[in-house]
């Protein structure tokens, strides 16, 4: 089973699907949607088989495949997944069918073509899977840049207000980061012995001159920090998240932004260990500032989608400090956070999208007392909010807790400051929920006929899997942490750090030592 070429098939499958869906005539919107949904389910099933086939105690990189591409540069189509990539691939496979189902009626309000929209979504899935499955830096870079194109058209053609501005800003920000990375990739190719293979480069990395390594690290880090986004590179996300259709926004923060943190873990830390340690204090400070600053901005937002975007920036601050704390607990917490954040914020964005679709407005002040009209939907919204603020019992709690204790063992000050972010999270989530669904019914809201329609069957199918997973992983994260842990330990070994002496906290039996 382990010889089956999972990763290349998984990568190419959505691309084929995108072409097929794009060829569906514009009038047959339903057919296009059905094909897209079915296609993403096939990807999900295949991913589940891959998950089962993954040998938890085995090699760090599994399912390795390699095909010749540009021999004179030693660039190859090399795919391989470690535990971190595996959980991200699984997250992608789960979120895409959910989002496609959630976006079922998104296009109908505009005069744009539905098959093109769903084709772009599948094309986006292709680039997302590719970027996580690549184990060749050239291939990774190709996916890293190409992923901008479908998202650019999704935001620019199908988005809400100010979509052109948001799309261009999104594209230019990411492209700027990508070009810094391009310079670093070329530099790495030259100093790393004219190869792009991750394995070979990781071996050659130790011999890179210290100064060069720091510059190269910076090239990669800026690209990933913009993508993630970390403070102060974050200003594109609220615009993009605010303008994108809700489903696409869920993918934007749920999956695409993880490329940044994944890239830091996989490439920055493993290839430039000394530089990572050298830059870690700066990265930690950026992470902590991001947590507090974005949370404060979120409190002040009146636009639901922008608010959720800001919460996401705050969460990425947590992931950032978890990565740069360089302890296994914090690292595992960060990766788990990437998964949980995808589920929780994805759910939140999707539910916000359901509200926005009914009301026809993103503004919180246009709501008020919506719970009286749509009680079930308001309940789901409340749950998504609680998951997002990491209430114990929901999955994000475990990861946030792991990040904080892992950070506390080495950097107590940062951990303490970051903890105040939890309080702020409670503030922005609860206040958002209160202003939107609780209190006096906004009279203008009652006049909108769509607001009388509570959650539909389709929408139940959209939110149910996410809610189930959030609760399941909130009580029993072991299946995921078991996969993540060896990969994180290997990464920490690459960085060359030891976990500090006996820790008193036992998150689960594998972390205990």
């Amino acid at each position, binding site marked *: 089973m382990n010889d089956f070429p999972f990763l290349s098939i998984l990568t190419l499958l959505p691309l084929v699907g995108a072409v097929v869906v794009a060829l569906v005539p514009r009038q047959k919107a339903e057919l296009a949607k059905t094909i897209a949904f079915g296609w993403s389910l096939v990807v999900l099933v295949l991913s589940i088989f891959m998950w089962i086939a993954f040998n938890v105690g085995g090699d760090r990189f599994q399912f390795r495949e390699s095909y010749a591409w540009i*021999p004179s540069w030693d660039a190859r189509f090399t795919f391989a997944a470690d535990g971190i990539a595996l959980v991200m691939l699984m997250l992608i496979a789960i979120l895409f069918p959910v989002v496609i189902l959630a976006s079922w009626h998104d296009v109908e309000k505009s005069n744009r073509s539905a098959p093109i929209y769903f084709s772009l979504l599948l094309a986006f899935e292709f680039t997302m899977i590719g970027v996580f499955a690549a184990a060749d830096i050239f291939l990774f870079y190709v996916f890293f840049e*190409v992923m901008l194109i479908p998202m650019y058209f999704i935001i620019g053609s199908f988005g809400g207000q100010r979509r052109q501005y948001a*799309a*261009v800003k999104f*594209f*230019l920000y990411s*492209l700027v980061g990508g*070009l810094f990375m391009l310079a670093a990739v*070329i530099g790495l190719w*030259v100093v790393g012995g004219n190869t792009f293979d991750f394995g070979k480069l990781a071996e050659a990395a130790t011999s890179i001159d210290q100064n060069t390594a720091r510059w190269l690290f910076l090239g990669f880090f800026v690209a990933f920090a913009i993508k993630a986004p970390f403070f102060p590179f974050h200003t594109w996300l609220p615009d993009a998240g605010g303008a994108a259709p809700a489903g696409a926004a869920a993918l934007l923060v749920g999956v695409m932004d993880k490329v940044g943190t994944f890239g830091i873990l996989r490439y920055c830390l493993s290839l430039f260990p000394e530089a990572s340690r050298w830059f870690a204090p700066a990265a930690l400070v950026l992470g902590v500032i991001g947590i507090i600053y974005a949370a404060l901005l979120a409190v002040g937002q009146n636009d639901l989608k922008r608010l959720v975007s800001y919460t996401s920036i705050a969460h990425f601050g947590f992931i950032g400090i978890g990565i740069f704390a360089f302890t296994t607990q914090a690292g595992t917490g960060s990766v788990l956070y990437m998964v949980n954040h995808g589920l929780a914020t994805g759910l939140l964005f999707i539910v916000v999208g359901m509200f926005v679709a009914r009301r026809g407005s993103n503004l919180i002040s246009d709501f008020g007392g919506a719970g009286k009209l749509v009680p079930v939907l308001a309940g789901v919204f409340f749950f998504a909010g609680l998951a997002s603020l990491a209430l114990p019992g929901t999955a994000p709690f475990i990861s946030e807790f792991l990040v904080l204790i892992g950070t506390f063992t080495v950097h107590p000050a940062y951990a303490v400051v970051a903890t105040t972010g939890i309080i702020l999270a409670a503030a922005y989530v609860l206040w958002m929920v209160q202003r939107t669904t609780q209190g006096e019914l906004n009279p203008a809201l009652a006049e909108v006929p769509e607001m009388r329609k509570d959650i539909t069957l389709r929408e139940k199918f959209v939110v149910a899997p996410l809610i189930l997973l959030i609760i399941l992983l909130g009580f029993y994260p072991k299946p995921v942490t078991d996969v993540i842990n060896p990969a994180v330990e290997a990464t920490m070994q690459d960085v060359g750090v030891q976990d500090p002496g006996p820790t008193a906290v036992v998150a689960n039996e594998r972390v205990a030592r």
Partner: protein
Amino acid sequence: MEDLKLPGIDYGALLPMLILFGAACVGILLEVFTPRRLRHVIQLTLAFLAVTASFIAVIAQHDTRKITIGGAVAVDGPTLFLQGAILALGLVSLMLIGERSIERGGPFVSQAAITVGSQKDLKQAGDQSGATEVYPLTIFALGGMLLFVAANDLLTMFIALEVFSLPLYLLCALARRRRLLSQEAALKYFLLGSYASAFFLFGVALMYGFSGGVALAQVHAAVADPQRSQVLLYGGLALIAIGLLFKAALAPFHVWTPDVYQGAPTPVTALMAACTKVAAFGALLRVLYVAFDGVRWDFQPVLGTIAVLTMLVGAILAITQTDMKRLLAYSSVANAGYLLVGVLALNENGLSSTMFYLVAYGFSVLAAFGIVTLVRDADGEATHLARWAGLGRKSPLVAAAFTFILLAFAGIPLTSGFTAKFAVFGAAIEGGQTWLVVFGVITSMLLAFPYLRVVVLLWLSEPNESTPTVSIPGFLTSAALVIGVVATIALGVVPAPLIDLTRDAAQFVR
């Protein structure tokens, strides 16, 4: 009295050039002897046959490595590769030049000298068929370019420079629409081009004084001799470089580019953007790598500064443009800067990556200008940017092709623009020119903005009444577009064959 010994001539090695010059002469005779009605078809066929035959001759020579005709011409890897590139790109340019179905009579007038705005002029702009002299002129220009990249001494290089420049000056003046702009472009190009040629010639004279000969090998030997006058060396090198930098459109010798690109008939602009660039950089590579290799440490910083200036000027001014042809002109200036980054790597990879870039860029730019010829209203091509708003809704296929080409110019992966940039930047870092790569990356960011603005116009703006129609392309233009777009994809996705070809070719004979 001693007998004069004639130098040996390898006609086989010269065959590609001989075919073109011969065909051009035949073409001029055909102008006289064939009826007007048939001239277009006959000339076009002759031109295609000549270029194809010449291309086949180049392929047949592919492993020739020799210097012939008394040391005047070097036929080696770079020569053959660049000649092949010029011919392949020239063939596609010919398709654009030969298109007659988009506009009555084609994009050229029959008589450029008629007073602009006069009754006669209006009549000929209306429906008279265009000049068929364009085909012999194009063939002469292509022949000159083939000689330019093969020239192994400075005088031959000068002659080749004139042979390919003069027809281009004429071609620029032949636009059917916007006659004044076209004439202005031709005059500007001619005057500035003459200056540049004069600089080049003066530089050759200084080099003769310096080294006692004009052959590149002689110059190379003289450069290694520290006893000689450094003033002559650097003066000569600087003046020769000015002549070549002008043709390659590098700042600060680029100022003619936007005006000429805008005024010339679009197919001729395409020819200049694709083929002239190959020829100019081919000659620059040969001069720097073969003759002046010994003073590389001296010219590298100076030309490096010029490369940075070119990239910055091209990128920044491209942002401010409102005319599609001028935008593409500034983009081609910036691309000349990237090419110079590859040249300045001064190693084997620098040579091969520059050659790769020339081919990749050539095909993309041909497709770009090919699309410009299609977007038109009653007054000819609608080149103002605002007019392109919403084109994606009206003609998605053409807009998609143009978007793809723009993404290639912006260097997005899976396009030839990315692999080409990657190749030259990689070579430059290997050659120790990291600072050039840093500027290359920064200007790429700047340059992405104007391209993206066009993409936004095409797709995200609503079409209005002034959005022009896209003409149904004739067979020739369609073929040119398909070749351009397919080459752009292919060199982005499977660049390995061409990269290997450039690597095998990357060795000058001296």
